[in-house]
């Protein structure tokens, strides 16, 4: 199968074959990062622009490293130091980037749907690096690549996602991707952080982490975003840790080889204990490594899918 889309906006819009093509391609790209010369000429002469309206280190750097390993040129634009401050609209900014003859825009925005809107307005490729509470497709893809490497296949796996489901684009992209590839997904959070209607996405809902861990092959621990809305729901961070934090005691009652994932940055002692984050069930740093391969695959495929 060949890739035909110019953009990657979310996993909701992809079918199973397309998701598997990205994962297979990413799996092939992993080898490039193990070479002494960590570079291939596939995107030589192409320009990728990182357009970030929200603070981000890991995702931006990961995209930058991925683009550079493909020999593309990379330009970073952070909204707070750009003409956005002077009131330029997203679409105007995008059209200017297109007029500079860039080939790919990688966008991170606090509004859900920003990437979709930009993709409609531009002829060049748009890659969603996280938009509001909507989707963060490359994060879910790297989670899935990690699961596939560790457990062989996504089909039939039980994956629990714990944390602020209501405000999580990582959860949403993971749910779309995992269910399309045949996994059973359980979301676990205090009632107030479970969005209404989430069961329509084909997931089980739990308010009890011990129960949600019981049959899980993997648990994806979301970052509690206390800088955003979680304060209102959980005034006491310690209270959250007691009720939902992933600790060694909790893991001892789960499957022995349960995989612990986290999209980072970690709040140690809030959603996960240090012991677990650094323990042998944790694949958190492997996720970071896989992120580069996934983003190389996405940048490569969208530039193939154009025209």
């Amino acid at each position, binding site marked *: 199968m060949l890739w035909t889309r110019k953009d990657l906006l979310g996993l909701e819009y992809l079918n199973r074959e397309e998701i598997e093509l990205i994962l297979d391609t990413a799996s092939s790209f992993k080898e490039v990062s193990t070479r002494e*010369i960590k570079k291939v000429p596939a995107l030589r002469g192409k320009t990728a622009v990182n357009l970030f309206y929200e603070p981000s280190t890991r995702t931006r750097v990961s995209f930058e490293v991925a683009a550079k390993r493909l020999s593309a040129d990379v330009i970073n634009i952070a909204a707070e130091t750009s003409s956005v401050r002077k009131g330029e609209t997203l679409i105007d900014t995008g059209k200017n980037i297109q007029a500079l003859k860039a080939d790919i825009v990688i966008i991170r925005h606090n509004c859900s749907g920003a990437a979709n809107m930009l993709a409609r307005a531009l002829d060049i490729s748009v890659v969603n690096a996280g938009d509001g509470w909507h989707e963060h497709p490359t994060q879910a893809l790297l989670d899935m690549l990690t699961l596939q490497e560790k457990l062989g296949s996504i089909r039939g796996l039980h994956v629990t996602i714990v944390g602020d489901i209501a405000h999580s684009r990582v959860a949403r992209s993971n749910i779309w991707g995992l269910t399309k590839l045949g996994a059973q997904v359980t979301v676990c959070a205090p009632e107030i952080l479970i969005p209404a209607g989430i069961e329509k996405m084909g997931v089980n809902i739990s308010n009890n982490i011990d129960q949600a861990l019981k049959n899980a092959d993997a648990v994806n621990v979301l970052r509690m975003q206390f800088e955003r809305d979680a304060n209102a729901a959980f005034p006491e961070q310690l209270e959250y840790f007691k009720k939902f934090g992933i600790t060694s005691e909790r893991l001892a009652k789960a499957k022995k080889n349960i995989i612990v994932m986290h999209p980072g940055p970690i709040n140690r002692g809030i959603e996960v204990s240090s012991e677990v984050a650094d323990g042998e069930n944790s694949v958190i740093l492997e996720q970071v490594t896989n992120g580069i391969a996934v983003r190389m695959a996405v940048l490569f495929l969208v530039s193939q899918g154009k025209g």
Partner: protein
Amino acid sequence: MQIKAKIMDTEAVERAITRIAHEIIEKNKGTEGLCLVGIRNRGVHIASRLAACVKKIENAVVPTGALDITLYRDDLACASGRAVVRKTEIDFDINNKNLVLVDDVLYTGRTIRAALDALSDFGRPRSIQLAVLVDRGHRELPIRADFVGKNIPTACNESVEVRLKESDQVDEVLIAVKE
């Protein structure tokens, strides 16, 4: 695609590979510092058969790898260049080795050009030699093979189909006419 003729059968393929294995050993005066790299997909199968032959003849294990050249193609920017990226697996050091690159069919030479570029990202072999099962002519670049299973003169509207047991259940080489 219409099959015009069968050029090689199972025995012919096997004999050609056995002969090439002997020639590789002869030219390199043994297996010291020798390694094989097959180009995906069918070059990889031929490389591992060559390695098995070399082992039988010299009782020596030659490091064997697989190379995917997709990312080095010169037609990536156009539609014809669209291809699935597969794994490259060269888990040995190629520096100062006598490296034999292996492919099924040598045609325009563009695949070999891409492979040479890819190999230079892995190191600097002492020499790179080229072994192919079939040379069908029509070169577009100054490239030639050191070891050839069979030279098959072809027309441009023909294609050479190499089928190997590992991927196609049968060993044979056919000439087909593009319709």
